């Protein structure tokens, strides 16, 4: 297991009477990690604590082995793409990057090279000479990402990075994020758009009401949720024959017919055993189609949040 880049040790953060993050202990290793949770769950607080923008009210938060709060030197190796759409609108895209690269300690030649590289990475070379005030929302979002990437940090914290982007840009950024993860960088992507997270990574950190609900591979999380029955929907030529053959299995908890008559929806506590036994029944009843509506992250999330 790779060494943790970000570590929370019994970290809590409250604002007056409101506890935003409650006794969180977790580590984030190199690779891409999706940070998921509904609004007000504590995602932003967790990200801000990791980015050293907030001090924990209790506990510790370290990033690359150093305390996140009060250590400006970590920003040589950490990049943050913040959520608010905010810029110095009077600057051009290139000037914006050059100014921030200067504050990261690069000399002039290297600043220019890195700025050009970052602009190319987010496909903003043509607009680099225009004022940011005239950029579209998607362009502004890409510029935000560029400033986080320009100094090639080891840790990238991305707060809603795909917001406002067109589909082509989204795909590019998602591919970029996956590539950075493969290169060994630690990338934390915070979002409430589940299918986007799923496209980038299977490693997730689910947060709700300031607590970590679950952490790990989303598929493994699903498998671990034994008490929550798996739902499998099957379409067959002879749905009643299919129903007869599966209902006798001890793992089947319930069975229902679809309104159109061809569908049978089964709930099972042991999906692996159910799938093993299925082929025989499938051939008999002529199964045409099969899917499981709760194999995805959304169902994992909904289930955990509802609990």
């Amino acid at each position, binding site marked *: 297991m790779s060494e943790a880049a970000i570590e929370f040790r019994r970290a809590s953060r409250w604002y007056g009477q409101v506890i935003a993050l409650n006794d969180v202990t977790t580590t984030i290793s190199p690779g891409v990690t999706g940070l998921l949770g509904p609004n007000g769950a504590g995602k932003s607080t967790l990200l801000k604590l990791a980015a050293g923008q907030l001090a924990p009210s209790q506990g510790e938060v370290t990033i690359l082995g150093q305390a996140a709060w009060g250590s400006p030197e970590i920003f040589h190796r950490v990049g943050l793409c913040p959520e608010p759409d905010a810029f110095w609108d009077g600057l051009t895209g290139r000037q914006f990057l050059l100014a921030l690269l200067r504050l990261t300690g690069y000399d002039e030649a290297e600043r220019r090279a890195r700025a050009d590289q970052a602009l190319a990475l987010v496909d903003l070379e043509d607009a680099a000479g225009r*004022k940011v005030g005239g950029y579209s929302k998607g362009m502004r979002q890409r510029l935000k990402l560029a400033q986080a990437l320009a100094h090639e940090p080891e840790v990238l914290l991305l707060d809603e990075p795909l917001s406002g982007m067109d589909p082509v840009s989204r795909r590019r950024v998602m591919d970029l994020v996956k590539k950075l993860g493969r290169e060994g960088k630690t990338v934390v992507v915070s979002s409430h758009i589940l299918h986007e997270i799923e496209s980038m990574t299977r490693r997730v950190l689910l947060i709700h009401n300031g607590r970590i609900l679950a952490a790990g591979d989303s598929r493994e999380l699903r498998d671990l949720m034994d008490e929550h029955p798996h739902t499998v929907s099957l379409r067959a030529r002879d749905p009643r024959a299919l129903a007869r053959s599966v209902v006798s299995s001890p793992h089947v908890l319930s069975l229902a017919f679809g309104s159109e008559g061809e569908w049978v929806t089964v709930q099972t506590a042991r999906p692996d055993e159910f799938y093993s036994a299925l082929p025989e029944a499938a051939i008999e009843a002529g199964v045409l189609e099969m899917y499981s509506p709760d194999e995805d992250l959304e169902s994992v999330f909904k289930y955990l949040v509802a609990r």
Partner: protein
Amino acid sequence: MPIYDQGYRPYEARRPLRTLRFWPITREALRLLLARRAYLGLLIVSWLPLVARAIHLFAVTRFAEAQRVLPFDERTFGDFLNQQIGFALIITIFGGAGLIANDLRTGAILVYLSRPLTRRDYVLGKLGVLLALNLSVTLAPALLLYSIALSLASEEFLKLKLAWIAPAIVVQSIVVSLVLSLVALAISSLSKNARVAGLAFVGLLVGLEVAHGVLRGIYHRPESALLSLQADLRAIGGALFGNTERWLRFPWPYAALVLIAVAIACLATLRARVRAVEIVR
């Protein structure tokens, strides 16, 4: 071929626009302002001079010596309104600085103008806020003071030859409120930052006051006071109430002309600045 040449017809609304379209803007802005305790406190403090004057009036009606030492006559209302100009300024700065600036910064102006509202309605709505606040510290307490005077000293004030007091109070209050409100709105429309707008308003007033002082040093003529907005307002009040101060002894139409020019300039500024979108070049 542009779209409007391809048989595009503008939308013809079936329902007529409501008459008092600006009113919701005024009402909601007032509600937000008056929900702030600091602002309510400011309004209460603005009414304290009324209490002092009422006590003064009570004293002069009870003690003849008091009338000799500190007379209370028809000019007192003019003095009172001059005093209230200071409070009106403070209320305008803190209530008016962000009225348009905040909308420009957040883009809320686009939300307003995407409703069946014209730019005129928007400006009227915002103007209504400041007018309401300023009149509440000028017209309202002055009229109340006049009512108190009529009840406590009716033999003194309930005379036909003093019937001009109430209309004079109304005119002066409206002039003060309107001019200050327009200037504040115009400055607010020039910035996207309420703080900058507020400070710009203060800077303008202070700068013009000091400029007036310097010009008076150069020319030693009362007309140098025309440069000062407060002096112009006081000059109008002096003409209405017959208590023109020594340093303001110039024809009141000059002051009126200056105030009209200021109002026109403010309206022109608002016309240019109140727009739904800003083109960034």
